[in-house]
């Protein structure tokens, strides 16, 4: 089948079984050249499994998959030569130094030393590890290791960069440093595929995304279009204390388009948050805390699955 040149990843009915378990259940998606594409979903949704199939290190059970126009079942090594991979768990080479990690990795791709020496220095600078170039890997902090892994993934100048939960486990500052580097990569035209269970990460980084749960795609689109389609403009969050939330929800009927009662809070989906809150208080209801905020992908996920992204 002929595919338009700017579709770099194409999946149809993509499925992966581990024994009895269906980890990825017939998913369809396309990734366009130069975009940042997200896979958002909670733990166990099948994000990593999908990534590993794209990375051509895991054989699909069924469906179609083509990466850069090639079938990974036949052209695994050729495809991998054009990919950069940042796995969920760092697998840096702890026995060799920071800069050597880049050089050696480049050699695995068959790249010559003449190319690799300046490239390694350039990438070390890009991920802000110049001071650590000669350090042993185990002396790096979590955020530094993550950045080194990204530098390593860029050594072969990949067409597509796959990032599996790039900022999980990092402190807020380290996350922002990393996001900044990813923005720059996107600006320079690298196609990014990012999995995450942080909705703010997905909103910040992704042009388009799919929302996954239990191996299936629940929804697809841009962050804004997903919010528009599945949520209201604003959300009123009320906390009455965990024993009262359920009882008071009854009295809130009629407010907003939809009410969601969680164990710790009540969410009212509405386009007029401040007004609704004022009317609620007028009625004599006294929440312990209240908050009006914009809708997020978290709300989209809640709407689609009835559960929170991070349990």
């Amino acid at each position, binding site marked *: 089948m002929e595919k338009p040149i700017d579709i770099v990843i194409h999946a149809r009915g993509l499925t992966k079984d*581990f024994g009895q378990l269906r980890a990825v259940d017939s998913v369809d998606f396309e990734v366009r050249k130069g975009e940042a594409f997200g896979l958002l979903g909670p733990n166990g949704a099948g994000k990593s499994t999908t990534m590993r199939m794209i*990375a051509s*290190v*895991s*054989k699909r059970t069924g469906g179609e998959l083509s990466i850069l126009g090639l079938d990974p079942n*036949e052209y*695994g*090594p*050729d495809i*991998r*030569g054009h*990919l950069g*991979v940042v*796995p969920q*768990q*760092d*697998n*840096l*080479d*702890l*026995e*060799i*130094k920071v800069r*050597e990690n880049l050089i*050696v*990795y480049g*050699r*695995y*791709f*068959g790249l010559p030393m003449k190319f690799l020496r300046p490239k390694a220095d350039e990438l070390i600078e890009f991920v802000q590890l110049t001071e650590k170039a000669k350090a*042993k890997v185990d002396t790096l902090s979590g955020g530094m290791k993550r950045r080194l892994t990204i530098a390593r993934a860029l050594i*072969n100048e990949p067409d597509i960069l796959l990032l599996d939960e790039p900022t999980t486990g990092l402190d807020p500052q380290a996350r922002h440093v990393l996001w900044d580097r990813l923005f720059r990569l996107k600006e320079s035209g690298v196609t990014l595929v990012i999995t995450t269970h942080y909705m703010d990460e997905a909103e910040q980084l992704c042009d388009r995304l799919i929302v996954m749960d239990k191996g299936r795609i629940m929804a697809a689109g841009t962050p804004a279009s997903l919010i528009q389609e599945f949520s209201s403009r604003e959300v009123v969050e009320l906390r009455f204390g965990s024993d009262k939330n359920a009882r008071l929800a009854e009295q809130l009927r009629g407010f907003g388009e939809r009410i969601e009662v969680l164990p710790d809070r009540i969410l009212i989906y509405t386009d007029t948050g401040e007004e609704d809150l004022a009317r609620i208080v007028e009625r004599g209801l006294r929440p312990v805390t209240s908050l009006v905020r914009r809708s997020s992908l978290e709300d989209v996920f809640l709407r689609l699955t009835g559960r929170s992204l991070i349990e």
Partner: protein
Amino acid sequence: MRQIYAGRPHTVVLRALYALKTSAWFIVVSGFFEPVFYLLAFGLGLGTLVGSVTGPLGQPVSYAAFIAPALLATSAMNGAIYDSTWNVFFKMRFARLYEGMIATSLGTLDIALGEIMYALLRGLVYALAFMAVMLSLGLVPSVWGILAVPAALLIAFGFSACGMALTSYMTTFQQMDWINFFMLPMFLFSATFYPITVYPEYIRWIIKLFPLWHGIELIRGLTLGQFDVSILWHVLYFVVMIAVGLIATTRRLTNLFMK
């Protein structure tokens, strides 16, 4: 084939050489001294009590010259097994190293061959050093003895390939200890310190099933000048070990890291 082999095992060797710089030199150097100590203690020490023994051609041979080739074969085996079991076990189960390699355009055969080639490189250095000791003590009567070095590499290759394949099935340190449990008796009873003729017929056949006996006979035949068709059988034994080991290792790496 292109799915499992990119033709770049040497890049895996390069990685091992970088890693060697930061590794424990004590272990690296001890690989040379172990057989030398055995040679001095048993060959020269015990050898004064034993006197000379009958060589493969019926000629009298000093006891040191009799056991030296066996020690060379054994050190080839030990080095290969150490590198392909303990080192590889750690990399497979804890270091996630192969996971990283697999994500590049390398194939599983590149990884298997690369690790083995590195073990052989180390084995070559040990074999040359031990050969130098044997020559300087006058323990290599035959000119064919020069072939003992490539023979030691062949032995190391066979043990590496099979050692790595076995290791890929192991999940705990206890299982790894079984390998040592098996190697020590093989070292002691494979006609290392005395000719196989001391055993009754049926025990000889059991000994002949094990690889170390073939390795020892191969090198002993070369250094003591018994250059005949039996050598081909010993060589064939290791060629089969290499083939089986490589195929099994490559399959296992694929199953473990590309599932």
